[in-house]
């Protein structure tokens, strides 16, 4: 049997897993949104989150360019605006010429873009951890039953990602622009001959996606007190989430991200050397060495691709664009 203390620990770890998952969810939904509307698999999501994280360093601490420094709330607002502008700009300058081109060339473009972004961040800020302004380092946490608690940045992430997943679902379901986006996604040509401007719908999708992703990057950084280059790895981790959720499903990406967050936290706690005690239920000592929590989501990725290639919520279809 599992003792009360053990189940309290399990609950605490699970809460942290959900919090982490909610952070991933923002980046994952950004990915699913673009794939759903434009058919582009954006492998630069991790780097876009990275840019989001360092935008706060740039604007909030005056690091790199000191005259840019503004107060923390202004920095956050400005970073969101930059996200929107970046989305529109990427669509205009980078992706529009590739409308109708083979999937592979677009994928390579996103990979190159990712390289450029992370190179640029490295150039400006170097490899070291950069702390966030004090106002954005949250030292509070929310108490939960069973003696558990959730750190402030996780709490915000959970709330924000819930709001965003709900808002996106309502947007796609009930607004006219939402129907048009779905129409364009399901049959681009049929939408075009009805007067739908594909360029415009694609621009809307990019703006939304990049904004959500940069916000995700900011919150990821907040959860560890500042920006670091490791945020880039989110791009790979969320692949597990979106594949699990079905690539083109926004709620699927959300659920997938929560699952991945849980896997990571539970995996690191119960399976890793050092912290590993006794796995609940199975009651054996498992010791996989550090880093095992990180690879669990990727194992999930492989399993899902083999077992259920369209994920849990995905539309079964052949790749388009």
């Amino acid at each position, binding site marked *: 049997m599992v003792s009360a203390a053990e189940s309290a620990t399990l609950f605490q770890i699970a809460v942290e897993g959900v919090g982490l998952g909610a952070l991933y969810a923002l980046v994952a939904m950004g990915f699913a949104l673009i794939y759903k509307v434009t058919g582009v698999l954006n492998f630069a999501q991790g780097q876009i989150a990275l840019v989001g994280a360092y935008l706060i360093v740039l604007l909030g601490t005056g690091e790199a360019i000191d005259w840019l420094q503004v107060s923390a709330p202004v920095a956050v607002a400005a970073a969101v605006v930059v996200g929107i502008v970046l989305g529109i700009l990427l669509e205009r300058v980078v992706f529009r010429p590739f409308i109708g081109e083979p999937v592979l060339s677009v994928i390579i473009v996103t990979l190159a873009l990712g390289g450029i972004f992370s190179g640029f961040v490295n150039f400006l800020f170097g490899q070291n951890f950069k702390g966030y302004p004090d106002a954005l380092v949250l030292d509070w946490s929310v108490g939960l039953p069973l003696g558990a608690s959730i750190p402030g940045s996780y709490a915000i992430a959970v709330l924000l990602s819930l709001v965003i997943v709900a808002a996106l679902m309502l947007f796609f379901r009930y607004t006219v622009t939402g129907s048009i986006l779905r129409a364009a996604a399901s049959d681009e040509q049929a939408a*075009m001959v009805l*007067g739908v*401007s594909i360029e415009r719908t694609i621009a809307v999708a990019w703006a939304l996606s990049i904004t959500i992703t940069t916000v995700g990057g900011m919150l990821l950084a907040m959860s560890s007190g500042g920006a670091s280059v490791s945020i880039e790895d989110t791009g790979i981790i969320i692949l597990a989430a979106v594949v699990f959720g079905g690539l083109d499903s926004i709620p699927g990406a959300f659920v997938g991200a929560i699952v991945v967050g849980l896997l990571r936290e539970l995996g690191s706690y119960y399976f890793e050397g050092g912290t590993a005690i006794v796995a609940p239920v199975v009651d054996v000592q498992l010791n996989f060495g550090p880093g095992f929590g990180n690879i669990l989501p990727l194992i999930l990725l492989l399993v899902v691709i083999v077992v259920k290639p369209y994920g849990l919520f995905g539309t079964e279809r052949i790749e388009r664009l």
Partner: protein
Amino acid sequence: MTASETTETATREEPDRPVVELDNVEIVYDRHFLAVQGISMAVDEGDIVALLGPNGAGKSTVLKMISGIGRTERGEVTRGSVVYDGEDVTNDGANEMVDRGVTHILEGRRVFEDLTVEENLRCGLYRGGRRVRFDEDDYRIAFEYFPQLEEILDLKAGYASGGQQQMLVVARALIHRPRLLLLDEPSLGLAPKLVRDIFETLVEINREENITMMIADQNAKRTLETADYGYVMENGQVELHDPADVLVDREEIKEFYLGTSGDSSQYTDIRHYKIRKRWT
């Protein structure tokens, strides 16, 4: 947007200027696949013009280059000109042509499957990215000719029957109040009774709403009965053209009724855009 304003104000005097005129048009896909070679056509205001011919003749290609959607398939008019309402529109894009009042009903009844019937109709209210009108009145034109649709507004279009889907794509186009309606294979895969209904409704729409139409269809007999004028294409060329009632009596056409349609497989092979199965 300015283009549409100029067309509307500047033209319209000469009554018998064709709505669309193709002059010696050559159409090439992917820069070197010659699909249509040197065809000329004219469609007069208020007419229904039939486009007939076997599979791969180039009927869809002609419609796609008039509506501009052919540009998204790497189609290009490489010689000759397309003139709409007195204005040279050769190789203009789909959005521009929609602005000018051209609506294309693509081959294969392409409803937006996971949208409801109403959401499908709503998409017809957009032009050049802007919502044009949006009130009950906009749908009335659709319900007037297809009252059945009003009963299935909340049904996912993917679940509607073949006949309902055909009504939906025509209704969706009507909401645009087009001046020129291009229809590609409206009768394909429908039961004979539905085919008759759809053609009757098209004639009614043509008369009542004064919408000029070009109809490409395999059902030569039915289409010619509906049309005022007809073109018969083969291998990317116009083989015959005459007023529909004259064309019906021509020997070559009688032969064509009997279904001597050429090799059909080559066409579906090349097609890379998703297109639904042609039988239902």
